[in-house]
């Protein structure tokens, strides 16, 4: 005998203003099977939840309908309350009187009548609900971290120090990411590599971390707790086991004129190379597109000089599969290409550079040994102009957002320049200075008040090159109310932070959404910044949105905490809202197997006691099924049904409206 309790929530004014909740409660009390029907201001609150628990005990309820907000909001809350009171949580349903009723209608009588109908439907359903038990899924307590920059490094170390295994995959031959290219970091002016490389070494040496550099993720199968990831390890042509990192090969390689990616093409590298001297692993790789032996079959000098015979021209890419339980995406960012701004030279002026170029010029291990020189002719720089917001905050031709880090790194660049060129002039054109972090404002003040950087509020309309090589920068000084023209030797553009090209491909592999700018979407912008819509995939660093190093590190540790929480139990509990096959009636037509978007349905043999196969039926993998119900719709013999939303339950809802 059904004994259903109905609880109508006012949700403050949200529902109560448009729906007459008391009247709804009164009418619902008359429904067959309903033994108690009340209304209350905030059902999700502590007293509200206590009401439900008390009623379950006192009225010996067999089912509960909470008529309130969307189940996406509080179904978990109320089901937990029911479970605590000893009622199977799946015997509690919600009727949505807010998003489906009070928020979309204006007239009280109309909304109230509809509310009564909405509750009636759910009462009919809940009377037919079954007690369901959560499904337990094993978890592989190994994490995959994609990206070996500061965020990936931090996440990997935190998870590994938490006692769990990590596989860290990095696309380039070395760890370090963009942070390894920086000269000094704001606001402390720490030498970037000095604070980074100890962590890189820690990662390489950590017993819990398997490091795969020069590798890329090519395929992701599976689901939370049970991913199977395929990683392509690119051919290095140098055996990392035998190579000692002595560097003899680098000195002798004749192919010396290859633009160096690490130096933003300001300098050159050889075909056999290390991205930078402090690379981890400190073993060179051969760039197959430029190596004379690999492209033309000539040379072979590196193999001749290598003291341990580590060179192997026959090396090939290999694919490995790793089983992991959680994935952290930490793939970082790129800088916008200012070729789109014809007024700044359209990318053709060699002395108009971006922030990374400047970092390499300023860096002691860079192509100029840390001297600020013009890329075009190597001359010293007596006047440098920095331009903020290049591409950022420009909905027409750039990106609409603020890139967050540029005001700070420009102030840093101005300071570094003034330290190196005492008599030099550093002019910064800005719109607004954004220095919101700890000690950030003080740092910018230092650049202006102590280090002598000239800050001009206004935009630059044009940069062109005079025949004598000087760059003419024409801008506006809006505080003085007049135009300003600066003759500069070097111009540094604070190009916008953008997502890496092709980042959408990885997102699609991971089942993670991304916005129109290619940044990966967090599950909730305020309260869930490191989770994604895919429960086993987490985010860390600038792949989610432009951010600086402290925030990237913080987010990486947060992602690691989520992973460790996931791994803290041996099994994962999944919602039992999955499809189930009636093996008696299934004719194995295969329609469901072909239609399932998640590939969750397989063949299952029904055998006799001797092991002879009598027939084959469809079988739903409990760990993979997402409960979408597509198979239920296509099954021709009606042999498959969705737990929690059975045909009987849903048809009862529909009938209740007639």
């Amino acid at each position, binding site marked *: 005998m059904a004994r259903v309790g109905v609880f109508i929530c006012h949700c403050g004014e949200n529902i109560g203003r448009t729906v007459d909740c008391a009247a709804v409660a009164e009418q619902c009390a008359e429904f067959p099977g309903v033994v108690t029907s009340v209304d209350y201001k905030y059902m999700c609150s502590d007293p509200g939840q206590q009401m439900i628990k008390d009623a379950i005990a006192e009225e010996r309820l067999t089912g509960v309908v909470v008529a309130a907000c969307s189940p996406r909001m509080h179904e978990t809350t109320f089901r937990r309350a029911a479970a605590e009171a000893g009622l199977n949580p799946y015997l509690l349903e919600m009727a949505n009187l807010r998003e489906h009723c009070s928020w979309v209608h204006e007239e009280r009588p109309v909304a109230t009548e509809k509310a009564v109908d909405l509750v009636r439907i759910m009462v009919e359903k809940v009377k037919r609900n079954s007690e369901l038990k959560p499904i337990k899924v094993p978890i592989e307590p190994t994490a995959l971290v994609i990206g070996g920059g500061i965020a990936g490094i931090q996440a990997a170390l935190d998870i590994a120090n938490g006692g769990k295994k990590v596989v860290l995959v990095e696309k380039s031959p070395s760890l370090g990411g963009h942070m390894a290219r920086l000269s000094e970091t704001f606001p402390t002016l720490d030498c970037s590599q000095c604070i980074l490389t100890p962590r890189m070494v820690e990662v390489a040496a950590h017993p819990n971390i398997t490091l795969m550099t020069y590798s890329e993720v090519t395929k992701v199968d599976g689901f939370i707790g049970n991913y199977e990831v395929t990683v392509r390890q690119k051919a290095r042509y140098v055996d990392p086991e035998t190579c000692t990192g002595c560097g003899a090969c680098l000195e002798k390689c004749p192919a010396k004129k290859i633009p160096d990616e690490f130096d933003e093409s300001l300098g050159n590298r050889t075909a056999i190379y290390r991205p930078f001297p402090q690379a981890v692993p400190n073993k060179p790789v051969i760039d197959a597109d430029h190596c004379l032996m690999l492209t033309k079959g000539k040379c072979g000098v590196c193999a001749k000089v290598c003291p341990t015979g580590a060179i192997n021209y026959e090396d090939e890419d290999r694919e490995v599969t790793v089983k992991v339980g959680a994935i952290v995406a930490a793939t970082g960012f790129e800088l916008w290409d200012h070729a789109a701004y014809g007024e700044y030279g359209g990318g053709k002026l060699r002395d108009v550079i971006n922030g990374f170029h400047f970092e390499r010029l300023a860096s002691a291990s860079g192509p100029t040994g840390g001297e600020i020189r013009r890329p075009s002719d190597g001359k010293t720089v007596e006047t440098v102009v920095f331009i903020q917001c290049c591409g950022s905050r420009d909905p027409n031709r750039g990106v609409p957002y603020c890139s967050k880090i540029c005001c700070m790194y420009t102030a840093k660049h101005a300071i570094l320049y003034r330290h190196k060129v005492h008599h030099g002039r550093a002019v910064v054109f800005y719109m607004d200075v954004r220095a919101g972090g700890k000690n950030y404002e003080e740092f910018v003040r230092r650049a202006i008040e102590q280090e002598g950087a000239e800050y001009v509020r206004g935009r630059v309309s044009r940069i062109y090159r005079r*025949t004598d090589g000087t760059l003419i920068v024409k801008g506006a000084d809006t505080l003085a109310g007049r135009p300003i023209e600066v003759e500069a030797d070097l111009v540094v553009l604070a190009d916008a932070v953008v997502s890496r090209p092709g980042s959408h491909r990885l997102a699609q592999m991971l089942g993670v959404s991304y916005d129109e700018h290619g940044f990966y979407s967090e599950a909730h912008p305020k309260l869930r910044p490191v989770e994604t819509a895919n429960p086993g995939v987490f985010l860390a660093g600038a792949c989610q949105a432009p951010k600086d190093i402290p925030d990237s590190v913080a987010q990486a540790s947060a992602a690691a905490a989520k992973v460790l929480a996931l791994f803290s139990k041996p099994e994962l509990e999944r919602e039992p809202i999955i499809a189930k096959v009636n093996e008696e009636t299934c004719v194995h037509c295969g329609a469901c197997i072909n239609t399932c978007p998640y590939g969750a349905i397989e063949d299952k043999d029904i055998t006799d006691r001797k092991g002879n196969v009598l027939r084959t039926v469809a079988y739903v993998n409990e760990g993979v099924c997402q409960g979408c119900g597509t198979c239920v719709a296509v099954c021709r013999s009606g042999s498959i049904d969705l737990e929690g939303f059975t045909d009987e339950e849903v048809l009862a809802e529909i009938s209740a409206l007639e």
Partner: protein
Amino acid sequence: MTTLGYYPGCSLHGTGRELDQSIRALAEVAGVDLVEIEDWNCCGATAAHSLNHDLAVALPYRTLALAEAQGLTEVVAPCAACFSRLKGTAVRLARDPALVEKMQRITERPYQGTVRVLNANEYVDRLLDEGLADRLTHRLAGLKVAPYYGCLLSRGEDIVPDDHEQPTAMERALTAAGCEVVPWNFATECCGGGFSMSKTEAVVDLSDAILSDAEDAEADAVVTSCPMCHSNLDMRQRTMNAAGLGPHEIPILYLSEVLGLAAGIEPERLGLDRHFVDAMRVTERLAEAPAAEA
């Protein structure tokens, strides 16, 4: 025989005579019939749109309606301001049917939006397609030119399709005529525009900067298609020199004059002898086109 509507506007009957002459001469060589729009009225230029929005649209609207009634599907408006007003209005009308209705009431003429407006650069390219390319009997052997676009011929959403910062619309024609296009920085910088009379110092300063950059780039001549720019750069050179700037002595040519010379038309017919700064000297560079090409 291709027919193109012709809208000379006020300036081509006045200070922009050379532009008018050279444009007509080129049409004849290319075998294109230029038909002047009957009873055309002033386009309004800057004056109208500074005073009254409706007037600014009605004036070009009437001209477009007249052209359409005359059966002309394409109209060449060599003056950059006339072009800007005519084409700009055509674009606005295409986007706003209510505006078309309003203009119809004001002018008492219908307009279906079938007229395409070409500027002088597009006109020259069009002639090249219509057979002029095969009739270039001469080359201005290696004459170094700085193509100057000014403002109205380099930008405008849906009005000028070129790159606003680094336009290239003149390059095909200039190269076909044998010129060497030099890279320079002031192709789209303001010449001072209509301030020629009301604030001549502005024109003198701005145009001096343009000419200085062209000279820096080692150009032998500056080529433009806008009669206002031409006037500022050509007529005001003497004023610049008198003010102690420059000194400049660089000929300013219309694109149509350059192509006219390459087509073997007599310089006087093109109006080349009417310039303030001697432009006839560029004819010294004229050489017969190599046999393989002609």
